[in-house]
């Protein structure tokens, strides 16, 4: 039993932060409730993006300030709000409570747990809407974020603080690339001397079953420990889907302010644009191209501008953004894809034809680009990636001519064969990210002709067995390659020796 003194002390401690200044309220009355948007009179002191509370306890956000009325989007499914109900301002701009306890959790855009665990308390309130860091606080992208996917790390490298778009039709592996990148951070985070990367996965307008699968996969691979999942599924109101990516970046900013590196995946911004279009049409904002409102570009630019690499004076933290866009019938020239392509620092373009031909990840190397990632690529991979990219481009050119069926000279035939093997080696199974040392070895054996006389169907087996061989017998070489420095001649000679040695054993 607690004695009375202890109880009083606890009460006093609880009430230490209590303020009696909450005596003034700005109150309005509901005029209309249509499709999750409330029009209310009064509320003359309401601010844009301010949280308001209805008489039945449900909450909303102010999105339009008109002469006599304000328009509010509902954050709950509140069909019982009727004309004449009161609504009051709270003086709070929409924010989410964030602390380290949020790692490994699944929450909605308001920070309400969806994993049957207790609510985060005593965290820092991070505003959902915030102006991105200015140019003075930033520095160039200079540290890589490894995806563990050979094709990306070699040809389309991503740096910490970069915004790299993943774009393609439905069901061809866009989410898989993002999830693989999150999973790959496990080995990065366990490496000594490397700054860990925290991850935020934002699911917007997706099926609950798909989200459940992603969470399960993250749990299974141990990636959920350093990941926060923000969920606004297809069954949630459009308002929550609209707010989800801003909640994701607000969480990321909490860690970034502490000097940490964060990776945020927005899956996907097409559905985010749909949700915003729905809200805008209900709010009677003028519709433009494809019925999107006039500020649809700003919707995504202000979100993606919050991806940042801070300079040392400002903590040195970073937010890397991997937005995902779903195209219809491979149409890159649609409104939202072109908008987001122009905002981001590059794109990974996935092709359904490649996917159907069994090339997975189905990355179209010709149309994919990383505008700033090159500066962040480690010298190890850089020393070898250029040659591979060139050979691949030559192969693609030659393959087009070769399809006419004319006789080919020996050099051309050799280049074609090399290209086929390069494409084969870039195939990689899902949820199997590779460390940089093994990525280097894979690319090295193909660009140095070791695989030229290996049958195409045996290339992947050769690669896997060679990796096992190196792990078992030549761990020192792998360790040297993991340092990130450009391999010297001696190391390359040793790699060549091991590759030839293994080739003799390979059958």
């Amino acid at each position, binding site marked *: 039993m607690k004695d009375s003194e202890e109880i009083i002390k606890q009460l006093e401690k609880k*009430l230490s932060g209590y303020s009696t200044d909450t005596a003034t*309220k700005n*109150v309005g009355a509901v005029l209309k409730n249509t499709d999750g948007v409330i029009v209310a009179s*009064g509320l003359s002191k309401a601010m844009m993006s301010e949280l308001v509370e209805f008489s039945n306890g449900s909450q909303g956000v102010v999105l339009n300030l008109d*002469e006599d009325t304000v328009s509010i989007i509902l954050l709950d499914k509140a069909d019982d709000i009727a004309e004449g109900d009161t609504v*009051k301002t709270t003086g709070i701009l929409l924010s989410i409570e964030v602390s380290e306890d949020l790692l490994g959790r699944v929450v909605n855009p308001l920070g309400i747990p969806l994993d049957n665990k207790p609510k985060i308390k005593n965290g820092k309130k991070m505003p959902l809407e915030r102006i991105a860091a200015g140019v003075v606080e930033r520095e160039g992208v200079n540290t890589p974020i490894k995806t563990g996917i050979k094709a990306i790390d070699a040809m389309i490298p991503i740096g910490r603080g970069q915004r790299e778009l993943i774009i393609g039709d439905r069901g061809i592996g866009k989410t898989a690339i993002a999830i693989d990148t999150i999973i790959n951070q496990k080995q990065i985070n366990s490496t000594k001397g490397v700054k860990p990367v925290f991850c935020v996965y934002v699911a917007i307008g997706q099926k609950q079953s798909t989200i459940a699968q992603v969470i399960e996969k993250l749990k299974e691979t141990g990636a959920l420990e350093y990941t926060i999942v923000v969920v606004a599924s297809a069954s949630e109101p459009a308002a929550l889907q609209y707010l989800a990516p801003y909640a994701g970046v607000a969480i990321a900013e909490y860690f970034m302010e502490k000097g940490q590196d964060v990776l945020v995946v927005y899956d996907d911004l097409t559905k985010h644009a749909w949700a915003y279009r729905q809200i805008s049409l209900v709010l009677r904002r003028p519709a433009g191209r494809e019925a999107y409102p006039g500020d649809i570009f700003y919707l995504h630019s202000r979100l993606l501008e919050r991806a940042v690499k801070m300079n040392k004076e400002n903590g040195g933290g970073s937010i890397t953004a991997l937005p995902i866009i779903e195209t219809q019938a491979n149409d890159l020239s649609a409104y939202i894809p072109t908008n987001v392509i122009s905002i981001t620092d590059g794109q990974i373009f996935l092709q359904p034809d490649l996917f159907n031909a069994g090339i997975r990840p189905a990355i179209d190397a010709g149309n994919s680009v990383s505008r700033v990632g090159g500066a962040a690529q480690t010298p190890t991979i850089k020393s070898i990636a250029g040659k591979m990219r060139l050979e691949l481009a030559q192969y693609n050119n030659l393959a087009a001519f070769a399809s006419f069926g004319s006789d080919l000279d020996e050099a051309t035939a050799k280049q074609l064969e090399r290209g086929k093997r390069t494409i084969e080696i870039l195939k990689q199974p899902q949820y199997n990210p590779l460390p940089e040392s093994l990525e280097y070895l894979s690319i090295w054996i193909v660009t140095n002709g070791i695989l030229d006389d290996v049958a195409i169907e045996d290339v992947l087996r050769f690669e896997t067995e060679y990796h096992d061989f190196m792990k078992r017998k030549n761990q020192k070489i792998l360790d040297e390659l993991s340092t990130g420095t450009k391999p010297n001649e001696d190391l390359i000679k040793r790699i060549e020796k091991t590759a030839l040695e293994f080739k003799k054993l390979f059958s």
Partner: protein
Amino acid sequence: MTKKQIRSLVSASYTNDQLDQQKINRITKLLNRPELKTYINLLKSFEKSKTLTIYTPHLSTGAFFKKELAKIFVGKKIEIKEDKKLIAGIKIIDNDNVYDFNVRNNLKNLVSYIVDQ
């Protein structure tokens, strides 16, 4: 007729800060049904903005509050109403602003604060 024009009709419906029946009759004859609805709504909100309602647990203190608050809210029509639930203190409603200086509101805030903790 635009909303702005109807709003000026609302202002014109007053003579010496009081609604003028004759003016209103003349105005309503000129308006169609939707315009009339807007006119009534604007008239209501205009009236509401000119009125200050004071809730007190004891009507006996009303006269004092009326006198004091008339100095702060100059030109407003002041109405006094009784609300025993306030326990002590007052509640002032000035258009869409509510000033809750009473024991009931304080207790309510305290409870929600403790629950949130």
